[in-house]
C-alpha cells in the first residue's frame, strides 16, 4: 500500500482472495477431519444417510429410555433371560417382506408355518454376539376369548379343554437347506414355546444359534421358519401371531404403521470390546 498504485492494490486483493479461499479450504478440511474423528469414535466409516423416514421399533425406544433413565453405574442391557451382561450394542432387524407385498396371504407360508428371512450382514465382524432373540407379537382375538371365558364357567372338563384351545405351541426353526418343495426342507428346531393367546404380548425366542451360523457363513442364511401348532401338536393357523402382513377385506395390504409396530423383529446383543469391565484393576 505504501507504493500505491492500482496494480499493487489488485495484487493485494488477489492475495486476500487466495488467502480467504485457502482459509475456507482449510476450514473445510478441519471440519472434515473433525467429523471423521467423531464418526471413527462411533465406529462408523461415514455419516449415515438414512434412505427412508426414520422409524424406530418401540422395543428399541423402550430399551433406550430404560438406559437413559437408569443410574450411571448400572448401564448395561440387562434383558431378562438373556446373557447380555457384557453387551453394549443392540441392533434390530426386520425381515424382508417384499414377497409378502406381492402375495401377502401365500408368501412363504403354508397356513401354520411361515418363512422369514433377515439380512444380518451389517453386524460388525469383530463384535461378539452375546444374545439374539426373535420377537413375535401375539394379539388377542376377542371373539375367541369371550367364548372361552363363557366356557370356563361350565364344567371342569370344558374349562380344561378351553384353556388347552387357547394355548399354542410356537416352534422356531433355522432353515438349513431350502428346497422348492416345502416338505423336503431341511431345518433344525432352535426354540419352542407354549403361548397363551389370551394375552396380547411380545414373545421372545432364542435365535442365537442361527445368527452365529449366518455370521460364520452368510450364504447359509436361508432364514427361519415359524410354525404354530395347537396344544395337541396339530397344525394351527397363526391368526393371533403377527408373522405376515395381513390383507384388508378389499384385498389391500394393511396399514404400514400398524404393520411396522407389530411385525417380527430380530434383536441382537453384541459386545464390541469397548465396554469397561466392572472387575478391572483397582487404583491404589
Amino acid at each position: 500500500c505504501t507504493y500505491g498504485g492500482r496494480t499493487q492494490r489488485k495484487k493485494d486483493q488477489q492475495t486476500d482472495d487466495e488467502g480467504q479461499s485457502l482459509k475456507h479450504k482449510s476450514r473445510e478440511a478441519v471440519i472434515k477431519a473433525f467429523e471423521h474423528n467423531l464418526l471413527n469414535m462411533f465406529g462408523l466409516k461415514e455419516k449415515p444417510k438414512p434412505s427412508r423416514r426414520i422409524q424406530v421399533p418401540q422395543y428399541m425406544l423402550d430399551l433406550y429410555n430404560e438406559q437413559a433413565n437408569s443410574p450411571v453405574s448400572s448401564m448395561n442391557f440387562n434383558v431378562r433371560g438373556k446373557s447380555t451382561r457384557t453387551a453394549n450394542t443392540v441392533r434390530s432387524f426386520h425381515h424382508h417382506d417384499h414377497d409378502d407385498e406381492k402375495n401377502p396371504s401365500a408368501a412363504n407360508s403354508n397356513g401354520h408355518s411361515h418363512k422369514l428371512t433377515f439380512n444380518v450382514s451389517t453386524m460388525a465382524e469383530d463384535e461378539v454376539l452375546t444374545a439374539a432373540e426373535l420377537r413375535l407379537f401375539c394379539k388377542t382375538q376377542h371373539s375367541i376369548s369371550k367364548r372361552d371365558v363363557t366356557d370356563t364357567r361350565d364344567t371342569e372338563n370344558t374349562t380344561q379343554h378351553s384353556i388347552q384351545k387357547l394355548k399354542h405351541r410356537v416352534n422356531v426353526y433355522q432353515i438349513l437347506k431350502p428346497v422348492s418343495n416345502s416338505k423336503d426342507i431341511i431345518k433344525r428346531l432352535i426354540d419352542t414355546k407354549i403361548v397363551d393367546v389370551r394375552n396380547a404380548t411380545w414373545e421372545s425366542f432364542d435365535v442365537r444359534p442361527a445368527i452365529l451360523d449366518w455370521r460364520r457363513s452368510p450364504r447359509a442364511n436361508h432364514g427361519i421358519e415359524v410354525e404354530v401348532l395347537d396344544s395337541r401338536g396339530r397344525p394351527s393357523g397363526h391368526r393371533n401371531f403377527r408373522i405376515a402382513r395381513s390383507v384388508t377385506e378389499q384385498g389391500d395390504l394393511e396399514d404400514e404403521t400398524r404393520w411396522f409396530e407389530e411385525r417380527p423383529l430380530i434383536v441382537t446383543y453384541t459386545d464390541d470390546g469397548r465396554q469397561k469391565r466392572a472387575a478391572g484393576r483397582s487404583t491404589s
Partner: protein
Amino acid sequence: SRERNNRKRRLKPNCRRHPLYVDFTSVGWNSWIVAPAGYQAYYCQGECPFPLVDHLNATNHAIVQTLVNSASPQLAPKACCVPTDLSPISMLYLDESDAVILKNYQDMVVEGCGCR
C-alpha cells in the same frame, strides 16, 4: 499480600467442571441420530494452584509436580485440570444400512474434574 493473592486466585478460578452441551441437531446429525437430540458433555477448566487442596482431587504425582513447579517453574509445569471421572451415554441411531442401533458409548460425560 494475602489480599493480592486472593484477588489473583479469584481471577483464575480453580479447576472445576463447566457445562458443554453437544447439540446433534446443530451439526446436522439429527438425520441419523434418533436419540438423544444432544447431551451435556461438560469440560474441565481451571487452575491447579499450590498448595493443592483436597477437593481438587489431586494424585500424589500432581502434588509432587505442583510442589516442584512452585519451587522452580522452569523444571516442571503446573498440574493439569482434567476429567477424572467419566460416564457413558446411550445413543439410538441408524447406520449405513438403515438398521436401528442402540449403543453405549463409554467416557462421554465428565462427572468429575481434578488436577493430574
